[in-house]
């Protein structure tokens, strides 16, 4: 026992630092969005319609639900293999569904004249959601990395894996909620 050393595991500390990096990445994107938006006399800029809420709402539902199912997975993977399996599959299904609904959103925007080249309004929505979707893809891959949970439930490293994949996913969930509110609702 060494009083100078922290009780937190190095993996936990390292992941916290990584999360800070990710927060800064998205914070910089939000800053760019804010600067571009406040420069304009009105938003959306003159000549543009707001984006239909249909696909963004579906995305929101998917990502919020998936966060919940992932939480249930992390609560159950040690005790109830069958239940946990169901929750993990639903999370991945919802995650992939999120990517599909995002693709539908981009298609819809492109077909209604809101393609990326049409000005900053479409640029920021599309580019921001590309970056976010790329992270969602990473998150889904991370969840697939949890498939072996039944065998490794007692493994310390595996428990950290569950913790970190969950933290990452909930973080992306929060980022999307902020995007949904600032880009589509207001």
């Amino acid at each position, binding site marked *: *026992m*060494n009083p*100078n*050393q*922290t*009780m*937190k*595991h*190095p993996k936990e*500390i*390292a992941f916290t*630092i*990584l999360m*800070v*990096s*990710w927060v*800064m*990445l*998205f*914070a*910089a*994107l939000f*800053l*760019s969005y804010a*600067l*571009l938006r406040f*420069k*304009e006399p009105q*938003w*959306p*800029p*003159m*000549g*543009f319609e707001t984006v239909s809420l249909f696909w963004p709402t579906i995305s929101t539902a998917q990502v919020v639900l998936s966060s919940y199912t992932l939480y249930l997975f992390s609560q159950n993977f040690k005790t109830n293999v069958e239940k946990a399996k169901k929750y993990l599959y639903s999370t991945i299904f919802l995650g992939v569904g999120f990517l599909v609904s995002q693709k539908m959103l981009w298609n819809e925007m492109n077909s209604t004249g809101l393609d*990326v*080249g*049409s*000005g*900053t*309004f479409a*640029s*920021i929505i*599309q*580019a921001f959601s*590309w*970056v976010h979707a790329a992270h969602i893809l990473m998150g889904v891959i991370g969840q697939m990395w949890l498939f072996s949970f039944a065998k490794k439930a007692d493994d310390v490293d595996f428990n950290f894996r569950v913790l970190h994949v969950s933290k990452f996913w909930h973080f992306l969930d929060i980022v999307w909620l902020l995007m949904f509110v600032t880009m589509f609702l207001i």
Partner: protein
Amino acid sequence: MTYAHGKHAAPTTFLSKYVFSYDHKVIGKQFLWYGIFFLGVGGMMALLIRWTLAFPGEAFPVLGPLLFPHTNGIVPPDTYSMLFTLHGTIMIFFAITPILIGAFGNFCIPLMIGARDMAFPLFNMLSFHIAVLSGAILLGSLFTPLGGAAGGWTSYPTLSTLVGSPGAGQTLWCLSIFVLGVSSTMGAVNYITTVICFRAPGMGYFDMPLTIWGLWLTAILNAIFLPVLGAGVILLTFDRVFGTTFFLAGAAATSGSGDPILFQHVFWIFGHPEVYILILPAWGMVSDFLSFFARKPAFGAKATALSMTTITILSTLVYGHHMFTTQMSPLLTQTFMTLTMTISIPSAILFANWLGTLYKGSIRFHSPMLFSMGVVFVFGLGGLTGLYLGTVSTDLYLHDTYFVVGHFHYTMAASVLLGGYAGTYYWFPKMFGRMMDETLAKIHFWITMIGLNGVFMGMMVVGFAGMHRRLYNPFVYEYLERLIPMNKFITYSALLMGVGQLPFVWNFVYSLYKGKKATANPWEVGTLEWTIPSPPIHYNFEEIPTVKCGPHEFGNPKLTNGRDFQYQTEELVK
């Protein structure tokens, strides 16, 4: 709970030992070679730039006709832009960062805090290999049809958008910087975690050598601010590849137009911490070396550490001083100016502590000490000239002149270069188990010192006289014609400095194989890395040491063991 790495067998094959090594010492050396290679590339680019400024329209001797056959050896204007862009990019991201942070960070952190390796050795190895990939992308960009990036190392739009630089060079630049950001972030996560979790028993934060403080604070800044640059280059890449309009002003005037200044904000939010990212490791090392070679405890070591921390925090709040000329509101410019001036306070404490350490010391003028004192001198000059640039009223006139170039070369190039050399001479025996030649090292120091002061002082003079940076041939303007002799002087100084590096290269390579065998502790210093053989065994410490005193215990009159210093593993003599 303590976290100590177990010991396992040393790798035996060439690949696992030198290429895909998990060993922090090997990764440190890999970064050292990588950095020295790019230092050479960036240095050659500097000489090409200097030649063009001193002898416009004349062929670069020897190499010119080979590099630019279609202009008979004269550096063409577009190539000139690529040269200063890539000189900056390479020196900052591919030379200084790998040497100061990659090499010394990897090599020193575990050894100086008494750990067997980094917290995540695999991550560490990947960090180097990703850095290699990034370097390959950057060098590859030079061979694309329209050549490499040419928008300056800051890559301001519109110079860096498709309007200013068509062709793949700038896109590859963005990609390369993004990939390098991933590598550096991985390194930073590793460094921070290692320092927090793997300090030897008994070592509190203030028992760490100041070198570790510098590297640790640097890693914290890296982890926080590199992603911001990452976001910036992602948006720039989208503008170039997918046709978004973030940085294109007036592209669609009625429908929400992009803003070139936006990139400057994002760039400098990262960019100002970046200059401290580069200098903090050098500060840390110098703070240690001055004490080690003056044979005195570091004056106010705790205050030095806290000053560095304060500067780290303040460095995140001052980025606007790079943008005084972007029609910022006067309220903002004054705020940024005040915050910038505030940095003088911890810097002055740091500086006073250095001088306090030297005062009445029994100084040993070994090469690391000479280079450290060089840092004190050039950083003083660089820091003081920064005040003129942080002040709005003077910056408006000095902005974008060679005064700025001189200033940041004094701080980022001269100080960091001399600090890097100090570290190389100091840890070479521990890295390779042999000593470098002191006489050659001293020749290297004096030529470098004279050369670099000629170059950077000259730059400040021509800048003060009004010469703008980044101009291909400034002398087409009549009022600058008088500056040709001064520019020739700068170029001759640069050549001298270039030639001055040859003794170093020779000394380094020769000493690797034929240098005098190093003892375990050639400098008679008490920090943990000197308690083990040179070079250290595979897992550094046979037994994890217990730390009982600080790193700067020198000249204690009560010492009776015939030494004037104490190892950190010894109980402090009272």
